[in-house]
């Protein structure tokens, strides 16, 4: 391979590595803390933030339009949209783009509101994406809380009175996840992470701050499903009130500031749909009766079917005898009204009651995905899974700060010691090793960023150890070159022979280490994994820097700088 070619490969690697590292640098060093806070919130929280913010803006814009004022600086992006709208409608563009002209470009107030809202939302969502492509700090560094929950499948087996199939287990765990996801509240500083772990465990994490109460509110209980009658008039009235008072309807805790806007026997709940990512998204507010129409534990099963004539998906659920009687009474008394399916505090779906229904209920009017979702939710009530906490960690934020400092000091101290030693022992070649090691560290962090891995203290320890061990490849080569020089070979010959002879020693030893690291990384999710992953990354990148980069630096000295001797030892001249 020509040297120029190799040089370009190295340049390309560095460039790619930088591109991977960039989101991390931007998130941690360039995004203001307030924006970070917002971006870490749940999607729902972001949406309601954007909505309320847009409501305030539109109000101001309307007032400005009345008084003939200009569009405020922060809303000038609307002018561009307005121009497009004029063009589409083939209207002559107004002379001056003031507030009135801009507003009249939109079909109605709602369109203008949507335009502003989506602008705000996209800004924050872009930041959220940035965060998810940056290196995440582990709980031990950021502080926070994590819980590992085990689905108790044995008790489910007892209840069903039969052995569980794989599909049953899958279903059970998905239901448990559904319940947990639906409890992610819209408050709190950071959005909890909820993910499956293995076949029967769920991992919940709230980074940033140890907040036992909040995590308990997510994991406690089995999820309560119930049917409630919707108060249609109150719902309409509330939505009108909310659009007029967007910013002072709810307080910071999500409670109504003025409870008298809805009848005393009702409560306001959010209606949620799944977006295409499977996340709950807020649709609108619904006012439902406080009184439970029917408790979900009367549900025996729920299935997704297709209508035989239209082929549209429909959900059928069966009630037990007692539930059927109750349901019949409820539906007969409320024909023409709507019935809401409520899981914990969220309305998952609602449908109009056409006629009194007894024990087999058919729900129609939605797509296949939504039908599956609703059936899943209904089954959570039919077959609740017991969840038990098997591991819990809470780490104070200040302890995390301490840990970061310790890790950084150890990293810097370790690198400094290794480099000073290499410089003193190998003279000029030590600089070569130093460059290789700095590049090595840079590559390791960028891989961490590229694969979205979590940085923990053990992974920092892995880096430190890797730096110590990565020098080994350099040492093997340098010692070889020294031996060749002692035999009286020229600079070029000694370097060539040194690299050739060291090649298999380096490959074999690193492949075996890599095997060990790979197995280690399979052990649990805890400290060992972080450590092993960074060790494995380090092994690969150190082979690259030692065989590729370090070689090129030597060749550069020989070919370009026309060096005749090798500065590699105090004894060999």
């Amino acid at each position, binding site marked *: 391979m020509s040297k120029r070619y190799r040089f370009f490969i190295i340049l390309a690697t560095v460039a790619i590595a930088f591109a991977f590292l960039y989101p991390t640098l931007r998130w941690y060093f360039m995004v203001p*803390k*307030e924006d970070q*806070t*917002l971006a870490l919130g749940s999607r729902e929280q972001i949406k*309601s*933030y954007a909505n309320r*913010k847009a409501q305030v803006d539109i109000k101001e814009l309307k007032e400005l339009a009345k008084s003939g004022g200009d569009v405020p600086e922060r809303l000038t992006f609307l002018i561009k949209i307005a121009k497009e709208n004029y063009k589409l409608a083939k209207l002559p563009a107004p002379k001056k783009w003031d507030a009135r002209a801009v507003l009249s470009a939109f079909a109605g107030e709602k369109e203008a509101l949507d335009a502003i809202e989506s602008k705000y939302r996209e800004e924050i969502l872009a930041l959220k994406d940035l965060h998810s492509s940056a290196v995440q700090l582990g709980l031990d560094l950021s502080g926070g809380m994590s819980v590992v929950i*085990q689905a108790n499948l044995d008790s489910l087996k007892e209840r069903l009175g039969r052995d569980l199939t794989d599909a049953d287990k899958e279903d059970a765990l998905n239901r448990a996840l559904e319940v947990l996801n639906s409890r992610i509240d819209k*408050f709190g*500083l950071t959005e909890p992470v909820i993910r499956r772990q293995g076949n029967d465990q769920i991992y919940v994490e709230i980074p*940033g*701050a*140890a*907040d*036992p109460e909040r995590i*308990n509110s997510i994991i406690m209980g089995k999820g309560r499903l119930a049917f409630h009658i919707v108060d249609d008039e109150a719902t309409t009235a509330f939505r009108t009130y909310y659009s007029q008072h967007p910013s*002072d309807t709810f*307080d*910071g805790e999500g409670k109504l500031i003025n409870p008298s806007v809805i009848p005393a026997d009702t409560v306001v709940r959010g209606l949620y749909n799944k977006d295409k990512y499977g996340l709950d998204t807020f649709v609108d507010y619904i006012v439902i009766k406080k009184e439970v129409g029917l408790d979900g534990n009367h549900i025996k099963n729920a299935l997704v079917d297709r209508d035989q004539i239209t082929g549209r998906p429909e959900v059928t659920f069966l009630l037990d005898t007692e539930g059927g009687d109750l349901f019949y009474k409820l539906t007969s008394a409320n024909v023409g009204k709507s019935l809401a399916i409520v899981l914990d505090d969220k309305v998952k779906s609602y449908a109009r009651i056409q006629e009194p229904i007894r024990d087999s209920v058919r729900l129609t009017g939605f797509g296949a995905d939504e039908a599956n979702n609703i059936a899943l939710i209904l089954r959570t009530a039919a077959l609740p899974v017991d969840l038990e*906490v*098997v*591991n*819990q960690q*809470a780490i*104070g*934020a*200040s*302890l995390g700060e301490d840990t970061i400092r*310790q890790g950084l*000091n*150890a*990293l810097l*101290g*370790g690198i400094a*010691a*290794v480099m000073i*030693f*290499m410089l003193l022992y190998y003279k000029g070649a030590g600089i070569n090793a130093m460059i290789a090691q700095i590049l090595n560290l840079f590559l390791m962090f960028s891989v961490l960023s590229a694969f979205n891995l979590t940085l923990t*203290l*053990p992974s920092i320890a892995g880096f430190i150890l890797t730096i*110590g*061990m990565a*020098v*080994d490849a350099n*040492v093997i080569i340098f010692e070889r070159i020294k031996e060749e020089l002692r035999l009286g070979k020229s600079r070029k010959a000694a370097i060539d022979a040194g690299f050739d002879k060291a090649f*298999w*020693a380096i490959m*074999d*030893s*690193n492949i*075996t*280490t890599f*095997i*060990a*690291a790979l197995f*280690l990384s399979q*052990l*649990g999710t*805890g400290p*060992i994994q972080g450590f092993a992953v960074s060790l494995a990354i380090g092994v690969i990148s150190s082979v690259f820097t030692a065989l590729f980069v370090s070689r090129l630096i030597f060749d550069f000295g020989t070919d370009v700088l026309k060096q005749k001797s090798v500065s590699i030892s105090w004894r060999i001249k």
Partner: protein
Amino acid sequence: MKHIIKFSKSFLPAVIISLVLIISGIVGYVVYGGFNLGVDFQAGLIQEIQFAPTALKLTYTGKGVAGISMDKNKLEIVISGSDVEKKTYSYPYASYQNLGSLADAMAGIEGLSVELVAGRDVATNTLVQSAQGNPRLGSVPYGIHYVTPEAEPVSIADVRKALTSLGSVSVQNLGQPKDRKFLIRIEDKGNEADFAKVTAERISTALTNAFGEGQVAISRTDYVGARFSKHLTEQAGLLLFLTMLLILVYVSFRFQFHYAAGAVLAILHDALIMVAFIVWTRMEFNTTTIAAILTILGYSINDTIVIFDRIRETLKLYPDSSFEDNMNRAITETLSRTFITTITTMFAVFSLFLFTTGTMKDFALALLVGMTSGTYSTIFIASAVVLFWEKRVKKNKVKAAVAANASLKKA
């Protein structure tokens, strides 16, 4: 040419010393009745607490959402929400040196009320945040604690006494006595539902009863259930076995089977030496310790392969020398590399040992021991096994040749 050191002369004494050390580890294991198991392997609850009285209490009744975060240099309150202007209020301790000035400044935030519990002249750089309670400020007062350097050390006996009602509790001192930090450990016998939550509350109540309200800040809580720890032990054992098996296969493939056997015996030796060290020092045995052992496996195998590679080469270069001489030559020639690599890695690990605390420090210490053993075992154990094998095979070959001769004569 360099002087070749006769390493093979010391193989036998080295093996004996290693055996003695490993057996002493097993004896220690029996004497102590096992490892000093960490929370990862023993179901239970661990809490790190610090005796730190409450300095301030904060309540927030504004329209937004208020969160608090603290570090060594500053306290920050982040207000977010749509109707309030999103804003971070930052209070560096350098500008607000005492509690009084900090409280006055914070009282300026709309909706936030500050109740001063400690004196106005308490230095702000002594403030600590507890890992308990909700860091989102609300109507329930949120306490911020402080540790004065002059405070009387709390005696460990008092802490134990306060917690006697909880049954068998282990209490350990952390750091300097003036830090007033303790580690509390309670085993989960699995006969109580909701153990973690209930026990954390009991600890809190017991400490409040003994030392007064708001005197203790919690810096860390870990809970591990019985199912989790059992799973981990099984997994660790299985992975260790698989790692060794795969290394055995790879080294057999690249060298020969008896080299692989030597390499695997050498890393097994390192693991057992580390176990002996961990048993005798009563170091806590947890996932981090396992990580240390597994790391040393990787490190030691690396070292061993480099020497094997050299033996392979010298065998080709000097086919007329005996295997033993070639082995001594290979070890001698790679000796400087062995030393330099060990030194650089030790520098790195020593830095880890120096700058970290708690389990990471233990990890670094275990690594230092393991590395010493790893370097030693490469030269004296792995090579000894290979040499022993070569000699035995040769002897068998000679025997076979003699036997073949004899049978020829008979015929």
